[in-house]
């Protein structure tokens, strides 16, 4: 229909062209409308946190406009950043997250490579199985895990419960399956000829992995790293269950357990702590986003 009008007459063509761009303009208007709506929806809570974090306790409890700071103060920030306890939470969180990311990568990368490339008996089933384990909710898993670590403590005398490093064993149950799954997908998108070329060039499986697959699938690895870090950093239920002493707590649990005393909510410091806690993942996102977007596989094959 449209080709007919285009073929037949010039004037019709212009009208058609104009309506095309009008459609496009409307589509843009709608997308801006919804994007703005979505931005407001997701940015208001952090804004409210920022506003509250700049208020003193008196101003928070006073019945003034909650969206405006009349007497800005940095006392909440100063209070937290000089508190050894808060810094300890921060340190614990950082240690747990960084080590978990390393453990996850050390397991997931070879696992994903093996499952996507070294076709062995049952590899497809195993790949699906890996993903299925991720679907078990942590709220269900923490009870048997707790019993397990308690039992290990009873039998061997190695006390893991209420130590921050117990989390190094637990978080990978969440991160490894998902990261393996992501990377199976990335590795599968690498053309088969690339590893065949490497094999013929004389590379071993390990060399193929380290010298071809890891550099080529870097965007995928970074996506998986971001995921593993975020999950570890934001985990709440497991550390709440497994750690109780103040010096073993990670940030999310620490903020909640130490800044809420009975029914007294120290809102200023809670908001400040939450904002400071959200900073590291944000910085990492901003830093790695370029790599994340870069398409490194371009040019490998005909495409």
């Amino acid at each position: 229909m449209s080709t007919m009008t285009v073929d037949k007459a010039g004037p019709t063509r212009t009208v058609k062209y104009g309506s095309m761009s009008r459609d496009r303009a409307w589509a843009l208007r709608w997308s801006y409308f919804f994007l703005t709506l979505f931005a407001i929806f997701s940015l208001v809570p952090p804004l409210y946190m920022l506003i509250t974090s700049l208020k003193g306790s008196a101003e928070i409890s006073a019945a003034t406009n909650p969206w405006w700071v009349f007497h800005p103060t940095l006392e909440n920030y100063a209070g937290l950043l000089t508190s050894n306890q808060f810094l300890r939470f921060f340190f614990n969180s950082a240690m747990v997250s960084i080590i978990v990311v390393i453990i996850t990568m050390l397991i997931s990368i070879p696992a994903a490579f093996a499952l996507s490339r070294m076709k062995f008996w049952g590899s497809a089933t195993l790949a699906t199985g890996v993903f299925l384990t991720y679907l078990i909710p942590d709220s269900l898993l923490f009870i048997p895990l707790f019993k397990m670590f308690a039992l290990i403590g009873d039998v061997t005398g190695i006390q893991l419960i209420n130590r921050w490093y117990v989390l190094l064993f637990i978080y990978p149950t969440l991160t490894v399956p998902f990261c393996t799954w992501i990377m199976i997908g990335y590795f599968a998108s690498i053309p088969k000829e690339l590893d065949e070329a490497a094999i013929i060039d004389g590379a071993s499986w390990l060399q193929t992995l380290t010298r071809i697959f890891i550099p080529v699938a870097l965007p995928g690895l970074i996506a998986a790293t971001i995921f593993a870090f975020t999950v570890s950093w934001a985990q709440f239920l497991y550390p709440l269950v497994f750690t109780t002493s103040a010096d073993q707590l990670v940030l999310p649990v620490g903020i909640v357990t130490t800044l809420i005393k009975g029914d007294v909510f120290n809102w200023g410091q809670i908001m400040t702590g939450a904002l400071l806690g959200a900073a590291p993942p944000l910085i990492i996102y901003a830093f790695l986003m370029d790599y994340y977007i870069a398409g490194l596989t371009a040019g490998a094959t005909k495409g």
Partner: protein
Amino acid sequence: MAEVSLRKVVKRYDDVEAVRGIDLDIADHEFVVLVGPSGCGKSTTLRMIAGLEDISDGDITIGGDVVNDVPPKDRDIAMVFQNYALYPHMTVAENMSFGLRLKHYPKAEIKSRVAEAARMLDIADLVDRKPKQLSGGQRQRVAMGRAIVRNPKVFLFDEPLSNLDAKLRVQMRIEIKKVHQKVRTTTVYVTHDQVEAMTLADRVVVMNKGRIEQIGTPNELYHHPATRFVAGFIGSPAMNFLPCRLEETDGRLHVRLTDRIAFPLPPLRAARYQSVSRNDRLLLGIRPEHITETKPHAEPGVEPFEAMLDVTEPMGMETLVYFGLNEAPVCGRVSPNAGARDGSPLRMAMDLNNMHLLNEATGLVI
């Protein structure tokens, strides 16, 4: 440098036999092309030589050693893939030197080998680029360079030109031939393009349905095909196959095409076909260039007949004419000045000195 031989090589995938017992001897320095339609087992055969596929049965030897269980990296082969398979994160030089670096060659030697190969392939000024900055033809050169620097016993090419446009393909074909003339490495080359096979090969191996139909030089295959498949596959436009019978008239052997058309066979042909049963259903195989317009002087074995042309295709130096003989479609090649026009009659001549006679049931050339 080495010879390659395949002895009763079989490849089975579950119940399907992709390659059904292949025997092939490739001499040192030889350029052998495996050609056939898709699914004929040519790529599988190449991949078995490379070691990328296991052999279900039989033996493959490279340089006299059985390599059935030798991993690809120890077979001393290099392979060029259809989609180039360049490492996208490495520069051209790094791509070419990857194999040498893995084998811990001295830096100076790597450098000189890469420079030499790059010069030979005319990509010397591209060595610092990444694959994505190269055109298709340049990428294919890099892929060849990667094979050349290794100086392997055998080159394996898996449809290397299929991704290039027609013009570039012709150019790269010549390039590959030049490279082979310089390095003289034993080469096995897979393609589905019979023109590529004919132009590149010392010997062509025509494969069909997992078996070898015929092995021979390009000229042997063209002029003396062994089967209907080879006769029809090699040559463009393809050979004509006309249903026919042999009959004896006035003491001479004739080939009868239609109720009205029967040609006496030239003496040499008549002697060869004397023993063929007169009742067999036969096919007269004749190439388009042997069906032409009539010449002013009659030649022995060239028999005139009347044809009603359906379609003519002027190609410039010649005109292809299409017509039917007793339902069978026929293609002939005539001079542009022969006066061939769509839908008009033309007096044609068939050169029976170059005919082939095939048994319709067995598909074999008699």
